[in-house]
């Protein structure tokens, strides 16, 4: 019998262009996604060396990080953001790269990790990179997808390749079945809380097990999206019927006979029986509850019914100091419950939870209910297509009737570069991916949670357990 291989090993082996001894592999990149914030210096580099973009046909650009989510006919108030956006438009034009921007093909603009899959650009077995750490999202399709820095963006533009050392593999097994009110966001927050934010360093996760198989594509993207929050640059899920069902008929997906051939090839990508991983971790879906973070990194999370841990009971000195510092920043006390903790803002959106399925979940909770008068609730679709779809389904009317702001697509308050931000001291329940100090605005305090929890908390005006509402 042939040697069994993991999904990762199969993709890696198929993309090595050259491998000199004692050197990193030259790895071919099938799809390069570009956005306005991490690319300007890379295009400048190309110009300085007089290089072209080697494969503009495998490169796609959008704008998401810095763009306002206010109506598109308003001018961009921030001159720095406006300059970056204009620079991307010029770079895309000069180098012949397709751009889904606010002036070019705006119907398809959106967060880079939302539009790749929805356009059918993201496909199983590919190598995919972008100057953004949440590129791990695309691993939900069984693609090896990871974030890169701007120097690497320049390298991929110039050569369509990257110099990469082969990472190790870590199997992440999720057994059992998710309970009512518990979703993909709770899986990944639960995992990162259990193993810490550095557990995956040097590794690629592969998520396996019945609880993963049962997830929709949108849910799988939520899980893979936050692989980086567990330290892993990439997270993979083997493609299956769910994957093919999501992809069929999308703009850039193969069609007709080419589709059948592609599906046959994609089916063979799954990890072979008996293939070995370098490490393995696991999570029990049956015991999982809605999760929420209390601290200043995504690993500082707990069951929503839990109590904030006490630094005095943490043995390791630096972990104790980190926890004490986090609680001071968050304005929380040891042993405090978070349920009922007042909040100022709810943010529903981002590359983690800004897809149509996420908005449907939130709308399901908000339908016929009202957002607490003390709360500002922003709903920011992940893409223009998601926005249109939501409006066709009437979700926008549910959100607006409940008292939410219904915005244009972008990263918005996840990274708070575009004017959507928390004021110092404010508390937010956010469906995004990072609760770092100042991430959602200088001095702002973030509780990360699922769209269901965010919606329930918007109604309560405080951290709330959605299971009481559904």
């Amino acid at each position: 019998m042939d040697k069994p291989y993991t999904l990762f090993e199969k993709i890696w082996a198929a993309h090595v262009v050259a491998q000199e001894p004692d050197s990193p592999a030259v790895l071919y990149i099938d799809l390069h996604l570009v956005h306005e914030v991490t690319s300007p210096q890379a295009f400048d580099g190309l110009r300085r060396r007089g290089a072209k973009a080697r494969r503009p046909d495998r490169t796609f650009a959008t704008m998401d990080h810095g763009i306002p989510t206010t109506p598109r006919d308003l001018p961009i108030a921030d001159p720095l953001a406006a300059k970056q956006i204009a620079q991307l438009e010029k770079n895309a034009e000069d180098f012949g790269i397709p751009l889904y921007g606010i002036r070019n093909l705006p119907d398809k603009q959106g967060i880079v990790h939302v539009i790749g899959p929805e356009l059918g650009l993201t496909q199983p077995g590919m190598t995919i990179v972008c100057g953004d750490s949440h590129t791990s999202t695309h691993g939900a399709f069984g693609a090896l997808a990871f974030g890169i820095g701007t120097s690497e963006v320049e390298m991929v533009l110039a050569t369509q390749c990257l110099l990469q050392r082969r990472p190790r593999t870590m199997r992440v097994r999720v057994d059992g079945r998710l309970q009512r009110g518990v979703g993909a966001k709770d899986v990944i927050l639960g995992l990162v809380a259990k193993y810490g934010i550095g557990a995956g360093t040097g590794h690629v996760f592969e998520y396996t097990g019945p609880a993963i198989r049962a997830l929709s594509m949108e849910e799988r993207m939520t899980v893979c999206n936050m692989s980086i929050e567990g330290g892993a640059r990439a997270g993979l899920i083997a493609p299956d019927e769910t994957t093919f069902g999501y992809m069929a008929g999308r703009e850039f997906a193969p069609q007709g006979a080419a589709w059948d051939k592609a599906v046959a090839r994609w089916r063979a990508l799954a990890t072979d029986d008996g293939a070995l991983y370098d490490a393995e971790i696991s999570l029990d879906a049956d015991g999982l509850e809605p999760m929420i973070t209390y601290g200043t990194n995504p690993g500082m999370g707990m069951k929503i019914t839990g109590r904030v841990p006490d630094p005095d009971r943490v043995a390791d000195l630096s972990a104790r100091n980190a926890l004490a510092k986090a609680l001071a920043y968050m304005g929380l006390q040891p042993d405090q419950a978070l349920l009922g903790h007042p909040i100022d803002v709810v943010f529903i959106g981002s590359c983690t939870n800004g897809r149509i399925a996420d908005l449907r979940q939130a709308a399901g909770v908000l339908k016929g209910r009202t957002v607490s008068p003390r709360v500002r609730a922003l709903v920011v679709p992940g893409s223009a297509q998601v926005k249109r779809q939501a409006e066709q389904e009437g979700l926008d009317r549910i959100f607006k009737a409940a008292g939410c702001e219904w915005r244009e697509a972008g990263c918005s308050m996840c990274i708070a570069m575009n004017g959507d931000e928390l004021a110092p001291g404010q508390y937010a329940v956010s469906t995004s991916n990072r609760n770092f100090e100042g991430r959602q605005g200088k001095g702002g305090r973030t509780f990360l949670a699922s769209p269901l929890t965010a919606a329930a908390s918007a109604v309560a005006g405080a951290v709330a357990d959605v299971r009481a509402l559904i």
Partner: protein
Amino acid sequence: MKFTAFTSQLVPLPSENVDTDQIIPARFLKVTDKKGLGDNLFADWRYDSDGAPKPEFILNQPEMRGRHILLAGDNFGCGSSREHAPWALVGYGFRAVISTSFADIFRNNSLKNGLLPIVVDPDTHQQLFSLVQEDPGAALAVDLAAQTITLPDGRPVPFPIDGFSKTCLLNGVDEIGYVLNMSDKIEAYEAARGW
């Protein structure tokens, strides 16, 4: 630029899991070049809401000026892929960061900007923090060619680095140029895949 050996005192920053949002907050990413990022290194820890330096933050202590080595806590540089983080560290004047571990993307980005990520074991890490506490003026010699940091008592401590990155740093290799020179291999790969 070639990475040369140097000796410097240390800036101790013991917090673990320092993320790239702390190294350079997102609002400073709205740039189209690399200039001036060093001024905003650790901006929210370094300046108050009026933009005045917070005297208690380590970088604002006068004796820390001109130091080129950051002694950082575990898992330094986690979070976002922004290369603005090493640009800000280099822009400020750092040439090496010492920790027990670095996040993958940050480490890659650092190596491409002449910023040396030095991994030491937990005991050495603790010793270095104790050393700076006892003698804030203690200096280390960093020698990439020898792959050592040398303590004030003359004891060399080896550190790991892969041979390719070491060669690139020491010789100032343009990695993009290196791969551009492989264009026949890339073409052959594309042809073989019909890509």
